[in-house]
C-alpha cells in the first residue's frame, strides 16, 4: 500500500471522490476504502500482465510442452517408454558424460575462482580490482563459437600454444591430451566458469571480517587454524551455492561443445540437438523430450540446492 500514493493513481482517486459524494456520512468510509484496496491490488497486478504473458508464451509454454510430450506416444497416448528409452544405452551414457563434465569443470573452476577472488580481495589497488571485475563480467558471458575457435587456435592440433610447447620439447598431443576430449572441454569451460565464480564469490570473500582473524590470532591461533575453523566454515555455504550455479551453467551449455567437437562427445544437449536435426529412430520421436525433461530435473535440483544454501549465505553477509 505504501507504494501507491493516491496522487500517483488517478482512477482510484476519482473513485474516492465519488464515494465521498455518494455517502455524506462517515460510516461507509471504511467499507469503501476496503473495496478500493482490493480493487487497487487487482489493478496493481494488472501492470504485470504483459510481462507475465510474454514469459508464459515464450518460456513456460515450450517448457510445459517438453514435459508433457515426454510422457506421450507419437499418437498422443500416455507412455513411460520415452523415459525408459532415455535412461538406457547411449542416452544413459550421455547423462553420465554430461554429469561428469559439469561436475569436474564446476569443481575445478570453483576452486580456481575462489583463489582468484581471495587474491582480488587482498588487492588494495582499486584500478586492478575494477579491471578484473569488469573483465570477469565480460568473460563470464563468453561462450559458444568464438570461445571454441579461440581454443582451437591455441590448443588445437595445430594451435599456437601446442606448437610452442612442442618446440619446447613437450607436445601435449603426445601425452594423451586433446582439446577435443572431455579433459579438453574442462579446460575450455573454465574460461567462462572461473570468471563467473569470481563474480559470485567476491562478495562472500569480502564479507570475511578482518576482526575474526585478529581475534583468533590474539587468542593464539595460527593462520592455518583460523582458515580451518573460521574462514572455510563461513565461506563453504557460499562456495557450494556458487558450485551449483557453475554446475547448472556447464550442464546446460551446448554451443561450445558442439562447435569444438562437432558433436563427437555425446553430451545430453548434443544428443538432443542430433535428435532435433532429424536423426530419429522410428517410434522414438519423443525421446528428445524425455532427455529434455531429464535436463530440467538435473538443473532444477541444482537450483533448489542453490536456494537452500543461499539462505545460509545470507546469514553471514550482514
Amino acid at each position, binding site marked *: 500500500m505504501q*507504494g*501507491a*500514493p493516491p*496522487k*500517483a493513481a488517478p482512477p482510484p482517486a476519482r473513485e474516492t471522490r465519488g464515494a465521498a459524494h455518494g455517502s455524506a456520512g462517515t460510516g461507509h468510509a471504511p467499507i469503501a476504502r476496503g473495496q478500493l484496496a482490493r480493487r487497487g491490488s487487482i489493478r*496493481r*497486478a494488472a*501492470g*504485470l500482465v*504483459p*510481462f507475465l504473458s510474454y*514469459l508464459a508464451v*515464450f*518460456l513456460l509454454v*515450450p*517448457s510445459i*510442452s*517438453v514435459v508433457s510430450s515426454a510422457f506421450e506416444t507419437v499418437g498422443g497416448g500416455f507412455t513411460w517408454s520415452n523415459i525408459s528409452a532415455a535412461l538406457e544405452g547411449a542416452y544413459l551414457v550421455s547423462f553420465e558424460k554430461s554429469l561428469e563434465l559439469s561436475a569436474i569443470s564446476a569443481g575445478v573452476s570453483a576452486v580456481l575462482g575462489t583463489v582468484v577472488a*581471495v*587474491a*582480488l*580481495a*587482498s588487492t*588494495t589497488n582499486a584500478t586492478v580490482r575494477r579491471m578484473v571485475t569488469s*573483465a570477469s563480467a*565480460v568473460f563470464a*558471458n*563468453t561462450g*559458444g*563459437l*568464438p570461445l571454441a*575457435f*579461440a*581454443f582451437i*587456435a591455441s590448443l588445437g592440433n595445430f*594451435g599456437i*600454444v601446442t606448437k610452442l610447447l612442442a618446440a619446447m620439447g613437450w607436445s601435449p598431443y603426445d601425452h594423451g591430451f586433446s582439446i577435443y576430449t572431455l579433459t579438453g572441454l574442462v579446460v575450455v569451460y573454465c*574460461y567462462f566458469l*572461473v570468471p563467473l565464480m569470481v563474480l559470485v564469490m567476491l562478495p562472500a570473500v569480502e564479507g*570475511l571480517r*578482518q576482526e575474526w582473524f*585478529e581475534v583468533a590470532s590474539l587468542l593464539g591461533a595460527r593462520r592455518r587454524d*583460523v*582458515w580451518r575453523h573460521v*574462514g572455510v566454515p563461513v565461506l563453504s555455504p557460499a562456495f557450494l551455492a556458487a558450485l551449483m550455479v557453475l554446475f*547448472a551453467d556447464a550442464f*546446460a551449455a*551446448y*554451443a561450445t561443445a*558442439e*562447435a569444438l567437437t*562437432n558433436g563427437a562427445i555425446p553430451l545430453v*544437449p548434443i544428443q*538432443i540437438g542430433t535428435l*532435433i536435426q532429424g536423426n530419429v529412430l522410428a517410434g522414438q520421436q519423443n525421446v528428445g523430450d524425455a532427455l*529434455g525433461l531429464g*535436463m*530440467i530435473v538435473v538443473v*532444477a535440483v541444482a*537450483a533448489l540446492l542453490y536456494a537452500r544454501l543461499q539462505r545460509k549465505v545470507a546469514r553471514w553477509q550482514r
Partner: protein
Amino acid sequence: MTVALRVQQRGKRARRGFHLGRAARTSILALAGAYFLVPLLASARYALEGPHGSYTLAAVTALLHDSVLLQSLVTSLEIALGAAAITLALLTPTSVWVNLRVPGLRRSMEGLTLVPLVVPVVVVVLGIYGAFPSELVASPVLLAFEYVVLAMPYSYRAIDGGVQSLDLHTLVDAGRSLGGSWAQVFCRVLVPNLRSSLLGAAFITVAYSLGEFAMANLLSFTTFPTELYQIGTEQVSEATAVSVFALLLTFGVLLALSVLGKRSRRTSGVAGRPVEDPLAGVAADLAAEVEAVLGRADPGRPGIVHDGRSVP
C-alpha cells in the same frame, strides 16, 4: 596526519588478516590473466597467419567478399535490433510499474527474470518445435522474440538498476501535478532519466543476439554465428578471423560501456545534465525542491539531484 596514521594501521591490519601477500596475489592474478589472454592472442595470430609464419589479412578480406556471410550478418542485426526494441518496450514499463506500485514484488521479479538462465536453451528449442505453429517456427522473427527472454536476466537487471536509482515517486508526482499524462510522464520524464541504463540494456540484448549460436543452429536459421560455424568446418583460419574480430568488438564496447556508465553516474546527475526536454527539466527542478522542503535526505534512497551515484 591522522589520516596517514589510519591508512598505515589499516595496511598493517590487512596483512595480519586473511589477505594474501603481495607475491602470492600478484602471481595468481598474472596466471589468471595469462589463461584469459593467451587464447585471444592465439586466435588473433591464427587469423592473421600467412605462409611460413608471415602475417596476412587474406583471411579477413576473403570473408568481406562472402555475400552469404554478409547477408547473415544483416539478418542477425535485424534480429538483434528487434529483440532490443521489444526488450525496452516490455521491460521498462514493467520495472517502473513494479517499483512504483508493487515494490513488495521487487525481489520476486528479480528471481523470475533469472528463470531463463535455469531452462537450458536446448529444452526451449524442443518445446518450440512441440508447441508453436510451424509458420512461426520457420520465421526468424521467432528468434527476436526468444532472445528477449534469453537476454532478460541481464537486460532486466540493467533497466531495474536504473529505475531503482531514480526517486520515482517524486518524479512521477511532479510530472503528474504539472498536468502531464501518464504517457507523457513516462516518455518525457522517466525515459530521459533512464537513458544510460536503457542504452545498457539494449546493448546487452544486441550483443547476446549477435553471438547466440545454439538456438539459431537448432532451429536451422542462417544467422551470423551459424554461418561462421559452417565456414569454420572448412576454413578454420577465416572463421577464426571473423570470430576474433566480433569478440574484440563486443569486449571493447562492453568495457567502454561499463567505464562510461561509471563516469556518467559520477559526474552528471539529472540536474547537472543539459536538459533538452522542458517538461523533464521542470519536473527535475520541482522534484529537487519538493525534496528540499520535505527534507528527505535519506542516504538509502538518494534523491534526484544525485540520483545515479549510488547505483548498486
